[in-house]
């Protein structure tokens, strides 16, 4: 008997397979027929875009790995060989490098969508948490991947970030030695980073599967944040969203292609085209743009807090910035999901977004530089301000808003027109059934 609760599909070979391993009926139910809210906007495309980017990164990564040499004497030259001698090597390399950038562009948009529309709230807390796990794995993968070309930024970025772990009391230095496999970033470090960089994307893939399974348990959120009430509120995923996702993906890939072919080094650091020189520190060490906000937070803790030294404080703050995302569902207890109906939260969302952009800007600059000529405001001061605001937003603002904000009245359903519809009353707090 088939294991699933539906009848096996198809006839002939498809049915034979499906009776024994219900992949086809599973796909039919979870992808073709899956009821999705019909009011998605284009921000809902990014899950599919992310899946495509993950596959692209894995495929380009595998063919690149066939040519790359993970040895400090050979790595830089092997990348240049890929660029010059391997058929289409330049294309594979640029797709992989720019693919990382576009992967992060997509993931940040995807996350901000979640924050705006309350997609992290009940019953989707675990979905959100799995997403943050994916983000962490992506960051680790990207960090290790950037080391592999063995350019100046590869080496020095690795040196700075691995050195951070020495801030951990008692065991810090031993941990760093363990990470390095030696007494500095060197061949053993490069080799193990290559092994792990190859491995992690498959871990990401596994967590993505869990992420999608969790999504299918609760169903998708939607821009109104209001649960679908019936078939009038939804459409089957296929063909409506397969079509829309294809269109959105094509547009995203068009922008991606423009950069790959016409501005392939726009997002990169020119200094990484110089081979790693362990005796020669570059004037400015910067990570890739998608790490800049976290780098800014790290560098903003320049003062000791009680017994915690500044260096350790910076490390703690940087990891806290990510870990605060894990507990977001419990920081924001507002029963209203979508910022569409949260007039105060909406403003603070945009301020938070600007704050992240400001953090990114700060991360790319030298802390002691002046922001404006003639004004004694340093980049570091802006770093303090924006770091403070980041944590203020999560730890103080969101919990307070959850208690004190008066949301707008929610529509009865997705299909019901919002204007002129019979909403529950002008001063509505959400009806219990809409409560997150």
């Amino acid at each position, binding site marked *: 008997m088939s294991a699933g609760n539906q009848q096996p599909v198809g006839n002939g070979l498809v049915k034979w397979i499906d009776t024994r391993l219900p992949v086809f009926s599973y796909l039919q139910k979870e992808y073709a027929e899956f009821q999705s809210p019909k009011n998605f906007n*284009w921000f809902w495309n990014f899950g599919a875009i992310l899946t495509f980017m993950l596959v692209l990164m894995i495929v380009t990564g595998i063919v690149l790995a066939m040519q790359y040499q993970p040895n400090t004497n050979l790595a830089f030259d092997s990348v*240049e060989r890929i*660029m010059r001698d391997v058929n289409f090597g330049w294309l594979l390399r640029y797709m992989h490098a720019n693919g990382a950038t576009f992967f992060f562009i997509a993931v940040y948009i995807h996350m901000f969508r979640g924050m705006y529309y309350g997609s992290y709230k009940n019953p989707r807390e675990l979905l959100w948490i799995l997403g943050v796990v994916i983000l962490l794995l992506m960051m680790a993968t990207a960090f290790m991947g950037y080391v592999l070309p063995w350019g100046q930024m590869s080496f020095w970025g690795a040196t700075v970030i691995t050195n951070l772990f020495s801030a951990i009391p008692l065991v810090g230095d031993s941990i760093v030695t363990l990470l390095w496999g030696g007494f500095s970033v060197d061949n053993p470090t490069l080799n193990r980073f290559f092994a792990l960089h190859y491995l992690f994307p498959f871990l990401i893939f596994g967590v993505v599967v869990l992420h999608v399974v969790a999504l299918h348990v609760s169903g998708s959120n939607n821009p109104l944040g209001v649960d679908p009430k019936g078939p009038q509120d939804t459409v089957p995923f296929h063909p409506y969203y397969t*079509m829309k996702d294809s*269109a959105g993906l094509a547009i995203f890939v068009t922008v991606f292609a423009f950069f790959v*072919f016409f501005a*392939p080094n726009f997002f990169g650091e020119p200094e990484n*085209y110089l081979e790693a020189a362990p005796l020669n520190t570059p004037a*400015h060490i910067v990570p890739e743009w998608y790490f800049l906000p976290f780098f800014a937070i790290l560098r903003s803790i320049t003062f000791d807090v009680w017994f915690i030294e500044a260096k350790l404080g910076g490390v703690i703050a940087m990891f806290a910035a990510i870990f605060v995302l894990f507990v977001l569902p419990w920081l924001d207890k507002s029963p209203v999901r979508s910022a569409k109906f949260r007039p105060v939260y909406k403003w603070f969302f945009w301020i938070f977004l600007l704050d992240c*952009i400001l953090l990114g800007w700060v991360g790319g600059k030298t802390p002691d530089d002046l922001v404006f000529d003639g004004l004694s405001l340093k980049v570091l001061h802006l770093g303090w301000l924006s770091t403070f605001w980041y944590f203020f937003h999560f730890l103080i603002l969101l919990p307070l808003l959850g208690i004190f904000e008066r949301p707008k009245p929610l529509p009865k359903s997705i299909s019901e027109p919002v204007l002129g519809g019979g909403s529950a009353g002008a001063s509505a707090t959400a009806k219990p059934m809409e409560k997150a």
Partner: protein
Amino acid sequence: MGIVSNMRRTAAVAGFAALAAVMSSAAFAAGDAKAPEDRDWHFEGIFGTVDRASAQRGLQVYLEVCAGCHSLKQVAYRNLADLGFTEAEIKVIASGFDVTDGPNDEGEMFERPAIPSDRFVSPFPNEEAAKAANNGANPPDLTLQVKAHPGGADYIHALLTGYVDPPAGTEVPEGSNYNAYFAGNFIAMPQPLFEDGVEYADGTPATIEQMATDVVNFMQWAAEPEMEQRKKTGFKVVIFLIILSAILYAGKRKMWANVDH
């Protein structure tokens, strides 16, 4: 309903502003270095190509002026076919340089003339020898220099033509040279280009400006030999994708026409 509502438009603008701000933070040389002037290059833009005549002259400048100190390790002699040299010409160019090969049957290393499949021969066997011959400074490999500095070709050109007299009262340290565009202004490399320093095979007058332009064109090709193929392919791919996006978007609109959303 429009594609992008007011709020989402703000999001897009904020995003691009962010990117621009973050990118412009790849800021310029510290110290008193002048920012290089923006020049127009034949290879710039979507339809940019290599100026082969200039790049061939640039090869001559590299071989006669730069190769005494600077290697070009990532380029092989056979790559010069891209610049329009024939196989015979390449063999002649290559054979002018000696490569260490071996071991032979007696177990010894030996010298032999370079062949097209060899990479450009380096002037020094290793970095230590290079430093020893150059007052402790290592003349960097030139293959990727155009990609390795913000400002790219503009910067390299400015650097090569930037050996001006220092402002009155500036003390130039021993072993350094004043350059208006170099970070900190004091560069170890002495002025490399002088009027008529090279006698061009095609008769072009060898002004400093000309030689700088030619060698930069050559270095740009050396740094990105795939550029022309990349831009050509890119044009076709992006046009294809624009059409595909349009078709898929039209399909989406059609499919969703009777759905109230």
